[in-house]
């Protein structure tokens, strides 16, 4: 089994040079101009919050909401860590956009055959043991890739070694854990990180889906039972009417 990979983004190191975005765009053949927000032609971008630069990309969750939402299973969490998108399966329902707690997936609204777009942590490159293009392009220590456990250890080491760091690794607990981690010296809520659930999102729908057998068994049984009673009543009423008619009490069998 391949080892699950993860990316660590150290916001104290980022110099905002946009090399990551440029490398990503070059790899995917997108126009090279930098963009302000994630888009179908920008799978990673760099936001500026005060004097800090925050690189955004798909968090590649451990238990992704998008993958549980996708009715045809086009989105999938791979053993290697990336959450991949199989455009051959997608029907364009856009439930993944509704579901994603980080608002990452983008839709090609302008196209006549539109697909969902998002970063897949360079799954194809990683499968060939190459680092993601954005990490490779980073000239400083702001982005690094490695085994998920080692990366978490490294993040832990960095925030313990220096008191400037916020004592939290963003992504270690969020939505049950992700494959992209952030460490920072500025509180995360000031850098545009929205509060998210601490439990994996698919837990929210798993309970409802677990009720299906109960609804089918109990509901089906109940309705069948009620139908049996209804039928029995009709049968008894008919038999009684016939009996009454035969014994000649003069009762009209049609008025029972």
């Amino acid at each position, binding site marked *: 089994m391949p080892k699950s990979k993860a990316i660590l983004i150290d916001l104290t190191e980022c110099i905002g040079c946009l090399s990551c975005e440029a490398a990503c765009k070059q790899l995917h053949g997108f126009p090279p101009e930098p963009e302000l927000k994630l888009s179908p032609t920008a799978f990673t971008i760099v936001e500026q919050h005060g004097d800090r630069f925050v690189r955004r990309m798909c968090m590649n969750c451990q238990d992704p*909401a998008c*993958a*549980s*939402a*996708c*009715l*045809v*299973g*086009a989105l999938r969490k791979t053993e290697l860590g990336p959450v991949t998108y199989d455009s051959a*399966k*997608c*029907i*364009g*329902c*856009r*439930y993944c*956009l*509704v*579901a994603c*707690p980080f*608002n990452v*997936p*983008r*839709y090609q*609204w*302008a*196209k*006549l*055959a*539109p*697909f969902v777009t998002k970063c897949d942590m360079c799954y194809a490159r990683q499968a060939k043991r190459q680092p993601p293009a954005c990490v490779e392009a980073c000239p400083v220590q702001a982005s690094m890739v490695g085994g998920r456990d080692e990366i978490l250890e490294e993040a832990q080491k960095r925030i313990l070694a220096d008191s400037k760091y916020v004592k939290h690794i963003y992504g270690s607990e969020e939505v049950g854990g992700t494959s992209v981690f952030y460490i920072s010296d500025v509180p995360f809520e000031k850098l545009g990180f*929205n*509060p*998210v*659930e601490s439990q994996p*999102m*698919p837990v*929210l*729908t*798993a*309970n*409802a*889906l677990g009720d*299906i057998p109960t*609804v*089918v068994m109990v*509901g*089906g049984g109940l*309705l*069948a039972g*009620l*139908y049996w*009673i*209804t039928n029995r*009543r*009709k049968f008894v009423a008919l038999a009684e009417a016939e009996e009454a008619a035969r014994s000649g009490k003069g009762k009209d069998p049609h008025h029972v």
Partner: protein
Amino acid sequence: MSNIRLPKLTFWRTVVAVIFLAGAYAAYARFALGFERSTNLADSQPWGLWVGLGTLCGVGISAGGFALAAAVYLLGFERYRPVVRAAVLLSFLGYLSVVVGMMYELGLPWRIWHPIVMWNRHSVLFEVSWCVMLYTTVLSLEFSPSLVEKIPWVRLRDWYLKWHHHVLIALVLIGAILSSLHQSFLGGLYLLAKGKVDPLWYSSYLPTLFYLSAVPAGLSATIMAVYLCNRSLNARVDPRLLSEMSQIIAPMLYIYALLRGIDLATHGGAGYLFRWREESLLFWFEIVLFVLAPVFLLSQSRVRNHPNALYGTCALVVMGFMANRLNVSITAFQASSGFYYVPRWTEFALTLATVTASGVIFHYAVKYLEILPRGVPVKNWMTSHSASA
């Protein structure tokens, strides 16, 4: 003089023609120009009017079919038999509109069959798609005798009707279960969007709430449809039957309101009830329209027993229901997305044209098939030999 008789130009025909023309342009815009130039959808509001109005309301308002079929065939409420065919037809056309809606709602509609072979059983939408597929099939079978009994070939007709009689109970039972599942799972879709849905609408009971609200809305829509047929298509359904049906609606709305109230009080949404913001106003709009006004009106026997007043009250229930679904699917996302979605006119036009088409088909079905008891003999549709027994 030409022998071709053009249809008479009436007010309603003109309205329908205008709606279809607008719908035709909107369909052109959707398929030839794409989402960007036919909708105001965006990444932060990926589901808009087509999902909120077309799918959520379409499926919900079509709940009357399974409820009445179950009441008549399974629970023995024989007195509702005169309206059961109308209810089933209304539901069938409702689901057909939803399926047609999917064709412009989905980005890649030619792949609509994918869920049949590509499964993800962790997906609520997967369950919904299967239930809708199966239930639309069940509805077409439940409705089929209305068409088959017009077939002039006696042996085929009798064979089919005999066979149908044997499986009808099973169909109704399966239909009731499938309906219960997907009516609630449409609410279940939004469970996954916790944190994005406004606290006034987010609830872990969303599936139950969707189910409990769909049934009264479906019954109200059925009452409305039968009332209109009585009025303009010479149908002869005893208004007392409709009045009696409406008595079930108020208790259902009570239960719904009770669960909604308890849930708001315990899940912290109650704190948002009286804030001066658009969401809270729209919440109260929905509650007044869907629950408070109808519950009061239906408690008055004067209203229940007056066909016009009953029709108006049922219209309130249906509109309140639509307000709820649009609130859940659109209003509830505004604050978290920071995006103010107002549907483009082409979005309205396509949904309106789809619903209107269903209405037109319903009209002609009631006119030429035996859907409701009518004051004049039903015209023979295919042949003069058809048995109208």
